[in-house]
């Protein structure tokens, strides 16, 4: 008892490290909380003094403005909320396409950078250095004002092989238009997908049993494409009719018209991000120790097999985390669209802010939407990272 007393007298709690650590954290959290509370309160009282209420009901009122390009139904009598959705879909379209194409180009660049062919190696190195040292905004404006707006006017449109029309109103590409058999064809495609998955699963398990590496991915696609081709031939009429772009009056019509703003943003983002992805890929490949390559050659694997079965699976572990950052960068960088007039989410939002005067709500919404898309991307990429990481046995 007395011993206990002297113990506590010796180290009172304000000098006890265990308490202090917790206390320090509690104080820090309180301070941060207080900071955010005070700025939120400051804003709300400030707005109230000016007689401005907060709320998201304005999203249901009519927007009154038109948007240049949209993938979903929209007109001036649609709501602000709908306008924002149009912008979000536009952002997602350019981001997803940008991610796909910059990944493909990036992998090619990364491998080319390691090539022993002098010319290929130096061209890739030159490209990477130039791209990585350019400001993206400058690059986008170059593509917009310097390339796509410099294309000829509609009446002097350039026709490229493959019926691609180049004008300063946009690039027209041939596009499929669904015919009446398209519904049936969609079912055939679905069936093909199920069949191909079944083939892949069977091959995968057989490969495990026999120990022979099965070409799962290859056969998956062969089955899928086979089913698609058979369906196309068997149906009485083709499910998609080819629609070619042509000049109609003041504008292009038919096919699919990609606006100069979209083309500039898409090319700019893709070429820029591909350079960074190229470096990520190169770093990943170089992280695989030379012994691994030598061992696989000693086992008699070919060059391509070495790359596919030994180097890439190990490199992927290093590549995925920085690759995720690049994907996130691309998505966020798409908001630079505001400089060249592509109606992405941020651009439509700033129009809504201006026409409705709801700056606080809209800025919170913009932050929330970008945060949500980024977090969703990283959740997916983290899941993939978990899946491919080296399982230690």
């Amino acid at each position, binding site marked *: 008892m007395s011993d206990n007393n002297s113990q506590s007298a010796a180290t009172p709690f304000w000098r006890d490290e265990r308490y202090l650590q917790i206390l320090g954290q509690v104080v820090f959290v309180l301070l941060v909380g207080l900071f955010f509370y005070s700025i939120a309160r400051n804003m709300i009282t400030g707005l109230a003094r*000016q007689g401005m209420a907060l709320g998201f009901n304005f999203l249901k009122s009519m927007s009154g403005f038109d948007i240049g390009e949209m993938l979903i139904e929209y007109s001036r009598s649609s709501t602000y909320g709908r306008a924002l959705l149009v912008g979000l879909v536009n952002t997602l379209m350019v981001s997803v396409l940008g991610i796909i194409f910059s990944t493909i180009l990036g992998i090619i660049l990364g491998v080319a950078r390691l090539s022993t062919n002098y010319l290929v190696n130096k061209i890739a190195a030159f490209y990477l250095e130039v791209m990585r040292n350019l400001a993206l905004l400058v690059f986008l404006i170059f593509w917009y004002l310097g390339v796509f707006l410099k294309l000829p006017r509609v009446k002097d449109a350039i026709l490229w092989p493959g019926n691609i029309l180049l004008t300063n109103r946009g690039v027209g590409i041939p596009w499929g238009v669904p015919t009446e058999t398209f519904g049936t064809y969609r079912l055939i495609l679905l069936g093909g997908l199920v069949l191909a998955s079944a083939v892949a699963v069977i091959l995968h398990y057989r490969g495990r049993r026999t120990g022979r590496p099965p070409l799962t991915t290859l056969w998956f696609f062969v089955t899928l494409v086979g089913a698609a081709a058979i369906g196309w031939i068997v149906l009485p009429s083709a499910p998609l009719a080819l629609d070619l772009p042509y000049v*109609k009056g003041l504008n292009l019509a038919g096919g699919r018209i990609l606006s100069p703003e979209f083309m500039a943003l898409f090319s700019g983002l893709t070429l820029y991000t591909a350079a960074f992805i190229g470096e990520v890929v190169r770093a990943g490949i170089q992280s695989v120790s030379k012994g691994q390559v030598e061992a696989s050659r000693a086992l008699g694997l070919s060059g391509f097999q070495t790359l596919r079965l030994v180097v890439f699976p190990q490199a992927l572990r290093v590549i995925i985390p920085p690759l995720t950052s690049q994907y996130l960068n691309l998505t966020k960088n798409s908001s630079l669209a505001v400089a060249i007039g592509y109606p992405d989410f941020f*651009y439509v939002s700033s129009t809504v802010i201006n026409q409705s005067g709801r700056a606080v709500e809209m800025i919170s919404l913009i932050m*929330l939407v970008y945060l949500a898309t980024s977090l969703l991307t990283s959740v997916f990429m983290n899941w993939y990272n978990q899946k491919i990481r080296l399982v230690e046995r």
Partner: protein
Amino acid sequence: MNKKYFALLALVIVASMVLSACGGAAPTAAPPAETSAPEPTTAPAAPAPAQVEFTAPGYGGTLTTVKERGMLICGVNSQVPGFGYVDAAGAFSGLDVDYCRAVAAAIFGDPEKVEFRPVTASERFTALQSGEIDILSRNTTWSLQRDTELNGNFVHTTYYDGQGMMVPKDSGITDLAGLDGGTICVQTGTTTELNLADVFAAQGIAYTPAVFDNADNTFAAYAEGRCDAVTTDKSGLVARRAVLPDPENHVILDVTISKEPLGPMVRHGDDQWFDIAQWTVFAMISGEEFGLTSANIDSMMSTATAPEVRRFLGLEGDLGLKLGLENNWAYNVIKLVGNYGEVYDRNLGPDTPTYIPRGLNKLYLDGGLLYAPPFR
């Protein structure tokens, strides 16, 4: 696995924070009551100086702030010659810019005590609401929504305008129907953008908008042939045509899509400031009506006999003091900046590259719409 949950958790936390911040708005209808609560206590506490000012929220605050700062901050355009334009040397000029100088002259007796802050169409109202600028004088169209929801008060119309359409001469387009299926360049965050949608929907003309963030980008894209036509206020079209690479190859169609009364705007909640801003416009208009110019006003000081002119000049009565200014404020406006006609001629007159006939912007005596209430 942990990372995944952490990411989801973070998302949920942020979402709930934002939602609660917004949800918190409704209950905080209380703060106005809270902030107004001190007023009754201060009002009885200060009966000693007999002239207790009527303290509506913000009343008189703007003028005090401006005087303490020693400088008026005016949100202007920097891209429309004749209205608000900054030249290569960094000097601002234009009708809207000179109005700011007139307000500075009325307050300080010095038209140079004004800082011009260029704002884009889409950021102008936020700049005014947040107090970053004292007056917005940026060819802004008066509309009900802006007068109410955007928390501003339009002072008076300083330029009666209408929305027009400019096309390249060789296109052969003469009316709106000729633009069917075409692309039209327009600037975002403007009434122009909304009028365009309204009128074309009403007339059933299909078009694609190409929307840009500022006037420079809009007209650069038009000059590159991105659009079949460009639309904005007619004054803006005239002004921007003057700075196109090939002005002679562009025509402004003889159609007016909408009424565009342009004028300066101040924040809600400071009626004294509103009065100063409004009567500065009236002083410029009345100055022209009374025949007072920056050249003759000094001699008029000794020769003027009409009582209203003498009140205007501050020789009789205390009109300036009622506004919270010096009694010779209107004299300063005319002497240092000029009357409406002088300012108009300086920026949009026949000798300027941006010449626009005065049209509706003449005195009511000459068949225009400019009409100021009496100085009494």
